[in-house]
Every structure is written in structure tokens, then in C-alpha cells.
């Protein structure tokens, strides 16, 4: 039996056993859950081999499974996050209901993601894609709040994506006679011009849903915020990357062969940039941290899509690097929210405040991840952003880069809102009892934030796998052209040197931190946040000193025109209209048996009258 099969079997078996282990004991369940993830990850990492293929023979379809360098890269993200979020989940799910349900779907969706990555033919790709969809759907509705609205919205959009993908798959099969991805790539040139457009568009629609691309993104805010945070870490960090994975393949293999290549690339890139901009604005408006991060995720995925769509070597590098980084820091942030929600019972930024001293480790994780998210040097996020901008500028996308720049600048606003809302500001009595989250939750967050720090100065750790992934799809060797001894180059030969930056920043930071902190720590004493000067006056006890309402109101007022129109509302109105229409049409069945008989007679009359045309 092949390694891939073993891993999948362990996953499915583990999922089933874990789901029903609650009958034995809760701890056994936890251990089984963690054990499944660890076992699969260890087996996977010990047996990485991109050359083997497993073929499962069915009478009419052969399912081919095997690793490619690209899928290996994404598998790093999936397994890494799965392990860390898995530990975190054990902590977060402590004492919650439906633990078996959660673990089952969690494991299943990880398995499905792994399956997607190892699929070398489109059918198994689709199978795992759908397993991923429904297992994540079941987790989206886990909370039981707004299930009809949120869950259905997620599923419908996923179904739209999946089905357009399925349509593409069957068309491909009818044209090439095979489901293999490699056959699609080799046979793509022989297709008719219409099909050459149709197939990539359908595939991109499918992937665009999971990557939350502009008109298809409306599921994301609700779904991300509704799922348990330990899963949203995976959801936003790894699951959405499956859409990116698909897009990368489409762009690298299919789009490049098209005469309309630039047009499609531009359209998708612009969609990505618009997604990023609009969702950033919406993120600024949110008061619930989950929703804020959800919108932020959409925005970040927008950047990744821009990078992947532009498709120059540097842009591809940027997209894939950002994909990794986004997985790292966004899942940390979702974990942070989860930890806070567990400790305080709410994730509303308006309610929770001043946790910095109660949950210092969580704060550190959040701070580092936020800095990485904002793309500020010297953390990992910057590397990706830099590559993205450079690639856009050097490939003549000037307005696009402005738009991307706008959204990433505006992202500072919600970054600050997030940090300030939870950790800074007044320390209200209401939250004085809050303790730091258990270690099993904090450690994964810290590990992840450590990764962001490390990648800021040593991006080669993942640039190398990306390079081998890209050269597998015959892109020029990026690793040696664009990267040299901690320096990244763009096409024009301009560079940024990461190690000196990191050293410089670190030195300056330490100097001044020492200057301020260590020198004054002894001499000064800590006072509470109530002890402040408001224009020289001492505030009274009952005075409200917490600034929460309308946090970025002035900014939002300025950008109001851009936020007036909401895709969500249009789509919901459309759905409502459809339902009303169907409510009307179902009145055909009016309950009178005689009418049905009349229908029958009319049916036969119509057929008789049309008989000359029908059976000529």
C-alpha cells in the first residue's frame, strides 16, 4: 500500500473513531484526534517523494494520486497548520458540546485538503474538493447561529464554484478522453478557441469561490466568523489556499497558452485587487473581531490572487509566499480571537478591552502577527508585499499597484483596531478576572508567530520549495535569479536586503527599548489606565474613558460612496426574487385533481399539434 493511501486511510479511520470515541472518554477522544493528525503528518514528512503515483482502478475511471512539488509546498501549509491548530483545538474544545462532530469534520477536511493536493486527476480532485466543502460546511454551521443564512450561503456559493468546476471537468473529459491533469495540459492546445476560453473560466470560477474572489466572496465573512475559531484558522489559513492552488495550476499551465492571456490575467488581477480594497474597507467597519479578520482574510487572498494572476516569476513568488505567510499569521490571529472568546465569552471589539496585562502571551502572538499582516518590515509579511509591489511595477500594472497599495495602507486601520480593541485601552473591571489561555492554546500561537519572525529574515526557507514547485511547471528558475544571499531582486535589478534590515531594525529597537524600558523600569511604577490626565483633569470613577464607538468614523465617512453598494445585498435580493418566483410557479399544482387531468389533455394536444415538428 502506498504512503498516500495509508495517510488517507488513517485520516478517515481516525475521523470515524474519534467521532465515536466520546462514548469512552473525552480525553481518549482528544488523544485520538491529536494522534491522527500527528501520525499522518509524521508519516507524510518522513516519506516525501514526488515521484511515486498511486492509481486506484475503478472500472470506468482511474484515480491517480501523487505528489508534485507544488502540492508539496501547499501540503506544508496544510499539515503545519493542521498540527498546530489541532493542539489549539483540543484546548479550545475543552468542555464543549459536539466535540466528536467537530473532530470528525476537522479531520475530514484536513484529509480532503491533502487529497486535493495529491490528486493528479480531476475526478479525485473534485471528490476531495467536495468532501472539503461539506465538511467545512458542517463546521461553519457548528455554532448553530444563523445556520440557514450563513450555512446555505456558504454552500450555495461553494456549489456554484464546485459545479462550474465539475462542468469544466466533464468538458475536458469529453475533449481529451481522460481525467488526468497532465492530459489536460498536453491536450489543451488542440482544443477549439471557445473551449480554450471556457475551460479556464469555469475552473477559475470554481477556485475563485474558495479564494473568495470578488463577486463570489459573499459567503466568506459569515462563514469565517461563524465557524469555531480553531477551525477558522484552518479555514482561512489552509482551506482557502486550495483555491489558490488551483488557480496557480490554471495560470501556469492553461492561461499561458491562450492568445487572450493578458486580458484574462488582468481581469482576474483586477478582481483580486478590488476584492482586497473593498473587503479592507469593510473590515475597518466591523466591530466583531471575527468578522474583521474574515474580511481581512478576503483582502489578503485578494493580494495573493493578484500575484498569481499576474504570473511573472516574481509575482508568482509573491503570491505563493504570501499564501504561506497568510496561512501563518491569519491563523494565529484567528486563534487569538478564539482564545479571547474562550476566556471572555465574546469576540466583540466593543466589549472586550485592555487584555494586554491579562493575556500577555496572546498579545505577543497577536502583535507579531498583526505586524506581519500589515506587511511592515522586518517580518515575513513584508517580504511578500515587497515582491508583490515590485512585480506589479515591473510588469506595468501601475494603477493596480496603487489600488493594492491603498488597500494595504488601509489595512493598518483595522490592524490597529484589532490590537487596540482587545488588548489596549482602558482596563475595565468587567474583565479583571480574565486569565491567560491554557498553554495548549498559547503555544501553537507563539510557534506560528515565531515562524512569521523567522521568515522575515530567512525567506529562503520557503522560497526554495516555491522555486522547485514553479520550475516543475516550467517557470524560469526563480531561486537563483531573484534571490541571492538574503537579497531579493526584481526584474530591474533593484533589491532589498533582508538580513541588514533585520539587524538594523533590531539594533535600533533594542537601543531605544533599553533606553526607555530598562532604564526606567525600576524608577517608575505602573499605574492603571484610570490614572490618566484628560487635559489636566483627573477623571472620575464613573466616567467612560473607553473609546470604542464609531472607531474609524471619519475615515468611513470619507469612503462611504465605495461601500454603498454591497454585493451581498444584491445576491440576497436575487435569491429572494427567485424564491418568490418559485413560490409562484409551484401554484401550478393547485390541488384540484381535475386540473391535473386537464393538464394531461393539454399536454397530449400540444404533442399532437407539434408532432410534425418533433418527429420529422
Amino acid at each position, binding site marked *: 500500500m502506498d504512503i498516500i493511501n495509508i495517510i488517507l486511510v488513517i485520516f478517515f479511520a481516525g475521523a470515524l473513531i474519534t467521532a465515536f470515541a466520546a462514548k469512552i472518554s473525552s480525553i481518549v477522544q482528544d488523544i485520538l484526534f491529536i494522534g491522527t493528525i500527528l501520525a499522518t503528518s509524521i508519516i507524510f514528512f518522513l516519506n516525501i517523494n514526488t515521484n511515486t503515483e498511486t492509481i486506484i482502478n475503478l472500472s470506468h475511471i482511474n484515480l491517480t494520486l501523487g505528489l508534485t512539488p507544488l502540492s508539496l509546498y501547499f501540503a506544508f501549509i496544510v499539515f503545519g497548520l493542521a498540527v498546530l491548530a489541532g493542539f489549539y483545538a483540543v484546548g479550545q474544545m475543552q468542555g464543549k458540546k459536539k466535540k466528536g462532530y467537530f473532530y470528525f469534520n476537522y479531520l475530514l477536511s484536513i484529509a480532503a485538503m491533502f487529497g486535493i493536493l495529491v490528486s493528479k486527476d480531476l475526478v479525485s480532485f473534485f471528490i476531495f474538493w467536495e468532501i472539503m466543502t461539506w465538511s467545512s460546511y458542517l463546521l461553519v454551521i457548528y455554532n448553530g447561529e444563523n445556520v440557514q443564512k450563513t450555512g446555505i450561503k456558504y454552500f450555495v456559493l461553494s456549489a456554484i464554484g464546485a459545479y462550474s468546476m465539475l462542468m469544466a471537468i466533464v468538458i475536458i473529459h469529453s475533449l481529451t478522453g481522460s481525467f488526468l491533469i497532465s492530459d489536460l495540459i498536453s491536450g489543451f492546445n488542440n482544443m477549439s478557441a471557445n473551449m480554450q476560453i471556457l475551460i479556464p473560466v469555469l475552473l477559475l470560477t470554481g477556485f475563485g469561490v474558495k479564494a473568495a474572489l470578488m463577486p463570489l466572496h459573499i459567503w466568506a465573512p459569515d462563514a469565517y466568523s461563524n465557524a469555531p475559531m480553531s477551525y477558522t484558522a484552518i479555514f482561512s489559513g489552509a482551506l482557502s489556499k486550495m483555491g489558490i492552488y488551483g488557480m496557480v495550476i490554471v495560470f501556469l499551465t492553461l492561461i499561458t497558452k491562450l492568445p487572450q492571456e493578458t486580458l484574462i490575467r488582468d481581469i482576474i488581477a483586477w478582481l483580486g485587487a478590488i476584492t482586497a480594497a473593498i473587503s479592507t474597507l469593510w473590515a475597518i467597519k466591523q466591530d466583531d473581531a471575527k468578522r474583521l479578520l474574515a474580511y481581512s482574510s478576503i483582502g489578503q487572498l485578494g493580494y495573493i490572487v493578484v500575484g498569481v494572476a499576474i504570473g511573472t516569476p516574481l509575482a508568482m513568488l509573491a503570491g505563493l509566499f504570501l499564501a504561506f505567510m497568510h496561512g501563518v499569521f491569519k491563523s494565529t490571529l484567528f486563534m487569538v480571537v478564539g482564545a479571547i472568546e474562550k476566556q471572555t465569552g465574546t469576540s466583540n471589539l466593543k466589549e472586550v478591552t485592555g487584555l494586554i496585562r491579562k493575556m500577555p502571551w496572546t498579545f505577543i502572538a497577536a502583535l507579531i502577527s498583526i505586524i506581519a499582516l500589515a506587511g511592515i518590515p522586518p517580518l515575513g509579511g513584508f517580504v511578500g508585499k515587497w515582491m508583490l509591489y515590485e512585480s506589479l511595477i515591473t510588469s506595468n500594472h501601475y494603477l493596480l499597484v496603487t489600488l493594492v497599495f491603498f488597500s494595504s495602507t488601509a489595512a493598518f486601520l483595522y490592524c490597529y483596531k484589532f490590537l487596540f480593541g482587545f488588548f489596549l485601552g482602558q482596563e475595565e473591571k468587567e474583565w479583571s478576572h480574565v486569565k491567560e489561555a491554557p498553554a495548549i492554546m498559547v503555544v501553537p500561537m507563539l510557534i506560528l508567530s515565531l515562524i512569521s519572525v523567522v521568515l522575515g529574515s530567512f525567506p529562503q526557507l520557503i522560497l526554495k520549495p516555491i522555486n522547485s514547485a514553479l520550475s516543475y511547471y516550467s517557470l524560469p528558475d526563480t531561486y537563483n535569479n531573484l534571490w541571492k544571499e538574503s537579497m531579493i531582486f526584481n526584474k530591474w535589478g533593484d533589491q532589498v536586503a533582508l538580513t541588514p534590515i533585520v539587524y538594523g531594525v533590531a539594533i535600533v529597537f533594542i537601543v531605544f527599548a533599553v533606553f526607555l524600558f530598562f532604564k526606567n523600569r525600576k524608577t517608575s511604577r505602573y499605574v492603571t489606565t484610570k490614572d490618566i490626565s484628560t487635559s489636566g483633569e483627573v477623571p472620575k470613577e464613573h466616567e467612560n474613558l473607553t473609546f470604542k464607538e464609531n472607531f474609524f468614523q471619519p475615515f468611513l465617512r470619507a469612503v462611504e460612496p465605495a461601500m454603498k453598494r454591497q454585493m451581498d445585498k444584491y445576491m440576497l435580493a436575487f435569491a429572494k426574487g427567485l424564491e418568490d418566483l418559485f413560490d409562484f410557479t409551484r401554484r401550478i399544482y393547485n390541488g384540484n385533481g381535475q386540473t391535473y387531468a*386537464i393538464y394531461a*389533455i*393539454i399536454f*397530449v*394536444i400540444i404533442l*399532437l*399539434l407539434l408532432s410534425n415538428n418533433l418527429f420529422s
Partner: protein
Amino acid sequence: MKKAIILISLTILGVYLIDIFTGIGFGTQHFASGVKDAYLIGSKETLKVSNVVTSIVVNFRGFDTLGEVTVLFLASMALGGILYKKRHDVGERSVLFPSTRIVMSGAKLLFPSIVLLGAYVFIHGHLSPGGGFQGGTIIATGFLLMLITYRNYSVSHNRLSYVESFAGILFIGLGLAGYFINNSFLANIFPAGKLNDLFSGGVIGIIYVAVGFKVAAELTGIIYTVLHEKD
């Protein structure tokens, strides 16, 4: 409006039907070779049954008849289900007005002869027009006469069941006998005899008798059930 649509539709349907059937032609041979000739010859030569319709109904297309009997059986079954009540709920028979003495005496007089006629019809089913269905129906009318004449005339449900079941079992049993002896369901297992003899046609006559009993019992049962509905 609705009526107009229906009228127009029916007119169109009628036009098409008339068109078809005038095209088919009336009273002429429509097809060059059909199974009809095989039936006529087979009935005369092999089965020795003079009534070809009977030989078709019972033997050539005996399977249809089996289905037909089943339909009747099912109808009485379904009727019982539809109008099912617990025993104590069974109501008085609804009679519009009590019958006069003349009717009563006449019915008593007629009943045996009706039953006899019915029996004659199904026993001679393979010789002359008529057969199990016809005979059974005639017998059932006799029971109907009795039931509407006499307010307290009753037929035992169980007895009807016995007759029904045994008749059915006989039919299928004979068929199965053919299956086991002649390797084909409903195949003739008895000597065919001579054309126009009472004991001709092998199993056909026997099966038709069974069918007659079954039909009579079922129709009576149906009438009985419906008559016992309270309104």
C-alpha cells in the same frame, strides 16, 4: 374559459382520433400477418377449444387473465382497505325503502335460476360465448338481488374468502402443474379432447370454472362491502 379550452382540446383530440381510425379502416383486414391466425388455428387444432376468445383468454394470453383476476382481487382488497372499519362499526345496510312481498318472493324464485345460469355460462365458456367472468358476474347479480331485497340477508365474509382463495389457488395450481409437468406455466396438462365436447380443451374449462367462482365471490364481496356503508 376553462370549458372553452377543454372543448377546443377535445375537438382537436377528436379530429385526430377520427383521422386515425378512418385511416385504419373499418371491417377490413388491417394487417398482412398477425397472431390472430395462429390463435384461430391453434385453438382449433391444438387446444380443441371451439370458442377462440376463451382459448385466447385462458391459454394463449392466460397470463393476462391471471393478472386480471389479480386486479379484481386487489380491487376487493383495496376496497376493504379504503372502507375498512372495526367489526362493531359495521352499519346497517342502507335500503331506500323496504321491499314488498312480491319483490321478496320473486327474488327468492329468481335467485337459484340466476346462479344456475351463471354456472352454466362459465362451465360452457369454452364452447359458447361466455365464460368465467361472465358467469361470475351473473352469479354476483343474483347475490346483489338478494342483498337489496332482504334487509337482513348476509353473506359470510369468511366463506367468500375461502371461495376466493381456493379458486385463485386452483387457477395458479393448475398453472404451476403445467409449469412442473410441461415446463411452461399454464401449459395444458390434460388431454385436449375433441372439439365442441364439454370435456375438451384440457385445463381451460377447469380454469374458467375457477375464474367464475373467484369472480362471483369477489364481486359479491365488493357489493357487500359497499352496501354496508353508512351515509
